[in-house]
């Protein structure tokens, strides 16, 4: 539809100009333009204006000197040494330079890069060196961003006696070009005697950079490449869950662990879903096919028979309905009661008369046990379906910050497996995520807000986080958020699990945050590494003086994870600390902690 004075905010001349321009734009140009306009609008903090001459705005918003990012992949240290040397030389000439190994460089920062110099060796059979592997994988994954506006050059070191000489350098060089970056100086492949050709490469790059600097820094603006949300984006919610694609699904537990904890990364692009640290993501799970098929067989049902799945009369095949609509893994008292009409088995009636008995019965049993134990069954399939509960959503504390990962959401899910009543039992959603959720598959999700587990509004307030196992998930989102916001408040994490070697969830991330000062303190309790079992509450008590001081200083305390044991013991420990360090009576200590809670300085997300 052409723009007119009537249907747009533009005057006739503007509308004409736009009408001439817009049809000639290709997709890339449109995205660029929308990003350009919206970022210009943000900076001007006014309504969108069409610049009369694009160049003027550019000059006010873009620095004349572009920042140079040097990334290296190094096995023996040669590339690292060169990278450091070149960085120093560039700094001498007043360039802004950052240098790091590829794996220390946060992939999501890639799209902010301006001038990129890559120095890498090649390892083994043409593989990247260890400290470049993750970055390399990222670059070759679907998640690699478009690099329009990025200028680069690659220096590769290798050993020509290997078949895949300098392969990693070649790969990266080609990939950067494919992603839209501009090669400003051709790649140089060096053999073992790399010093000279490497020096020549650098001199060449430097000469080029100097030339461009003196030319006055005319350059393409790095437009914000985010797609602008269309107006008709549906609002995703429990009623209309979003189909989120799985980008990553890894087991966080090392070999030899008793646990399996999945880290999932889901793609929220196009969902318009927003969340804050502390919120949960809800997943509509699907039942295990094997269990559903066994049930159908046990009841001698026809899997293809049509059954209703809601009151609006939507129908599905029985098998499909049992897989995605109805709950089969959990028994409830209402279910047992309603089922009485479908069986003449007297034992069911007897069971329901004794509340101790039916409670004991439903613990650890599922629908298959039930139909096996209380047949023979009468009535139709529809009758039976009519007594079943809809499959409930599963909620998981979100493990990422949206500010740090604008189009993703990360989850930390403990896979639940146990044996009961002679059969292996599987957690519905956790095992779906662990065993049946591959890259590219989709999960039905929506965001569940949790206003009772929120970072303090004051970025300077200290935060003390206590969690065991998957209870650590929201703290990852807290720290990502505080890092992204550059919140100056101190952060202290207590984490507990079974074994240091295999169960230290997100270990390298905490280590990085500790090194960079985002995380001020971290204490860990691995309960099965020593003869004596040590839990988070023990670590709290060991540090009681310091913990109390933090509380006195206005710290916000968070507890996430198991309710029955961990949260209870931590609560006790906090009271003990107040008693001991604050010289309080037990009663006063209790009200001290209670006051924290009322001031929202003691928040819990326990289950």
């Amino acid at each position: 539809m052409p723009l007119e004075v009537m249907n747009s905010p533009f005057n006739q001349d503007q509308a004409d100009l736009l009408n001439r321009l817009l049809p000639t734009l290709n997709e890339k140009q449109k995205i660029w333009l929308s990003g350009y306009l919206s970022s210009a609008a943000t900076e001007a903090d006014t309504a969108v204006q069409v610049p009369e001459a694009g160049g003027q705005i550019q000059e006010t918003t873009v620095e004349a000197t572009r920042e140079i990012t040097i990334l290296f992949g190094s096995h023996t240290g040669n590339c690292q040494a060169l990278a450091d040397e070149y960085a120093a030389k560039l700094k001498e000439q007043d360039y802004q330079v950052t240098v790091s190994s590829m794996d220390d460089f946060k992939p999501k920062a890639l799209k902010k890069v301006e001038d990129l110099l890559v120095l890498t060796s090649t390892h083994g059979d043409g593989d990247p060196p260890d400290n470049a592997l993750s970055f390399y994988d990222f670059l070759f994954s679907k998640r690699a961003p478009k690099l329009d506006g990025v200028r680069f050059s690659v220096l590769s070191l290798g050993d020509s006696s290997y078949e895949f000489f300098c392969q990693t350098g070649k790969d990266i060089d080609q990939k950067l070009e494919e992603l839209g970056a501009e090669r400003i100086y051709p790649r140089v492949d060096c053999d073992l005697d790399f010093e000279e050709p490497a020096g020549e490469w650098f001199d060449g790059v430097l000469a080029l950079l100097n030339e461009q600097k003196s030319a006055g820094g005319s350059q393409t603006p790095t437009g914000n490449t985010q797609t602008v949300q269309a107006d008709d984006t549906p609002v995703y919610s429990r009623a209309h869950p979003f189909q989120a694609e799985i980008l990553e699904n890894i087991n966080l537990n090392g070999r030899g662990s008793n646990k399996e904890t999945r880290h999932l990364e889901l793609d929220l692009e196009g969902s318009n879903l927003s969340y804050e640290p502390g919120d949960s993501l809800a997943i509509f799970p699907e039942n295990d096919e094997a269990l559903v098929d066994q049930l159908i067989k046990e009841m001698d049902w026809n899997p293809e028979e049509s059954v209703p799945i809601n009151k609006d009369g939507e129908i599905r095949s029985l098998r499909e309905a049992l897989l995605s609509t109805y709950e089969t893994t959990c028994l409830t008292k209402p279910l047992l009661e309603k089922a009485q009409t479908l069986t003449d088995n007297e034992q069911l009636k007897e069971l329901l008369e004794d509340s101790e008995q039916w409670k004991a019965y439903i613990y650890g049993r599922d629908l298959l046990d039930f139909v096996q134990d209380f047949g023979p069954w009468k009535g139709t399939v529809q009758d039976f379906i009519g007594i079943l509960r809809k499959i409930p959503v599963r909620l998981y504390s979100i493990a990422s910050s949206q500010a740090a990962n604008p189009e993703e959401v990360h989850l930390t899910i403990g896979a639940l497996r146990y044996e009961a009543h002679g059969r292996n039992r599987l957690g519905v959603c956790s095992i779906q995520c662990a065993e049946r959720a591959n890259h590219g598959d989709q999960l039905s999700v929506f965001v569940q807000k949790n206003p009772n587990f929120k970072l303090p509004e004051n970025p300077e307030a200290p935060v003390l986080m206590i969690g065991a196992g998957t209870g650590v998930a929201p703290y990852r989102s807290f720290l990502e958020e505080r890092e992204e916001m550059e919140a100056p408040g101190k952060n202290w994490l207590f984490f507990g699990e079974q074994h240091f070697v295999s169960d230290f969830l997100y270990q390298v991330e905490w280590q990085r945050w500790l090194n960079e000062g985002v995380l001020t303190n971290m204490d860990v309790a691995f309960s099965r590494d020593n003869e004596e079992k040590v839990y988070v509450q023990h670590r709290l008590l060991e540090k009681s003086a310091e913990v109390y001081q933090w509380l006195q200083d206005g710290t916000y305390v968070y507890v996430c994870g198991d309710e029955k044991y961990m949260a209870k013991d931590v609560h006790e420990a906090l009271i003990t600390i107040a008693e001991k360090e604050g010289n309080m009576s037990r009663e006063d200590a209790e009200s001290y902690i209670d006051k924290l809670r009322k001031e929202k300085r003691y928040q819990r997300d326990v289950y």
Partner: protein
Amino acid sequence: MSKERDSQQHGPPSEMEGIKKESRYLRGSLVESLQNPITGSVPDSDTKLMKFHGSYMQDDRDVRQERKQQKLEPAYQFMTRVRLPGGVATPEQWLVMDEIANTYGHHTLKLTTRQTFQTHGVLKWNMKKQIQMINDSLMDTIAACGDVNRNVMCNANPYQSDIHGEIFEWSKKVSEHLLPRTQAYHEIWLDGEKVEDSKDEYEVEPIYGSLYLPRKFKIGIAVPPSNDIDVYSQDLGFIAIVENNELKGFNVAVGGGMGMTHGDTNTYPQVSRVIGFCEPEKIVDVAEKILTIQRDYGNRSERKNARFKYTVDRHGLDWVRQELHDRLGWELEEERSYTFDHNGDRYGWVEGDGLWHLTLFIQNGRIKDSEDNQVMAGLREIAKVHDGEFRLTPNQNVIIARVEEEKKQEIDELAEQYGLTDGRYNSALRRNSMACVAFPTCGLAMAESERYLPSLIDKMDDVIDEAGLQDEEIVIRMSGCPNGCSRPALSEIGFIGKGPGKYNMYLGGGFTGNRLNKLYKENIGEEEILGTIKPMLFEYAKERQENEHFGDYVIRAGYIEEVQSGLDFHP
């Protein structure tokens, strides 16, 4: 005497020199690093200091990438090497090492090519307990690694027990004399009282000073005709001269060493050369003075060029001899004549001086229980009943030494029961094989070694059988990297790892460990290794002259040039 050090400039001191200097005599921040609960590692500078305390930080490389994906740090763990001069251990000490391996380690022990025990897989939190156990059993790990004199080797001679005893005592004296004197080890591991060594550096470390040596330093004592310790591979080698069953003294050989760097021809393996002879009681003095020459003249700028062999080659033998004489205040005598006839081990029972000694074949020195045999359990049971000693050989085997006649049968029965063997059913090629640890624990490994060589020999054995060479002793050695822990440059067939599944192949080393081999093919995989060696072995079987060893044959047949000196090692 130490001031020369400063006048010898090879360039700015390497990073390691700074770490040593700042370490307050090997303390660094080890106490704090060992306590940090967030990581199983210690920081880089402490890792380097740990070596002086006998331990290398490693990680399980089999799971390195997997763990990285899992957002876990590498599976950090520590290798610990005992200082065990001459490789002699009591049965009680054997049992302690067995217990450590099974309590804190990976349930295996490695007998090293320098006659000592190594444990692998010990976590940071257990290091102190482990070292205390070692200490309680009257062993230690001081200076088992690092820029110091390493474990002193000594011929494991089972034939002449009394002479062995005498020479072994000298190896112990050399080892004790050259130990670092810092109290750091006792403070860090043994809860010793904290003493800050604030005195003059040569009061704290009379031999080493505060910077210790530029690089590791290796000493070994050989007793002809056996060159089991590969005397020519040592920085400082002593060759015992025994006449009429009496120790007359030692020939002194200097400047050997194995390590090199792929692609850097300024680095090379070298054989030591004899510069004279000294009487037995002079050995400690000679060792100390040679070591101080290296302390003062070794290259402290370039670690790849810092071993004593480079110092010797840079200054020449005459200069070394003169410098030594100046420092000793007396002169070495003319070298005495001697002959070596092998560097491998001689297996099975032998009698010497009324006692019996059983040399067992331990493939690549790996003490562990497997489906085929229970080497670890068997040696544990033997240790429980044995009242003589264990001798760890330089070829990674073990001798049940000093067995009384009436105990022989019991030992034999235990050996039989647990599948321990003197190697008689193995080819002579396998019995003369050696491999370093390499993957998955060694951080330097570029290719498999210990886990691969046995299966390569399986395939070579087919050829060996076909060619009728089952009993022909051929020394074959593999190392996962060019540092050469298994002394591959002194083998008749040598392999040095280049990349996963790829090796440089070397030929033409001397059977008695007297001549370096030379690169024959570069960067080849198994198929090409077998394709290359097969026709050579057949030809050798057919055309060898009487008593001609494989290493000599390949030179005569023109496959490879003879190497006279390390300076000719590279093509």
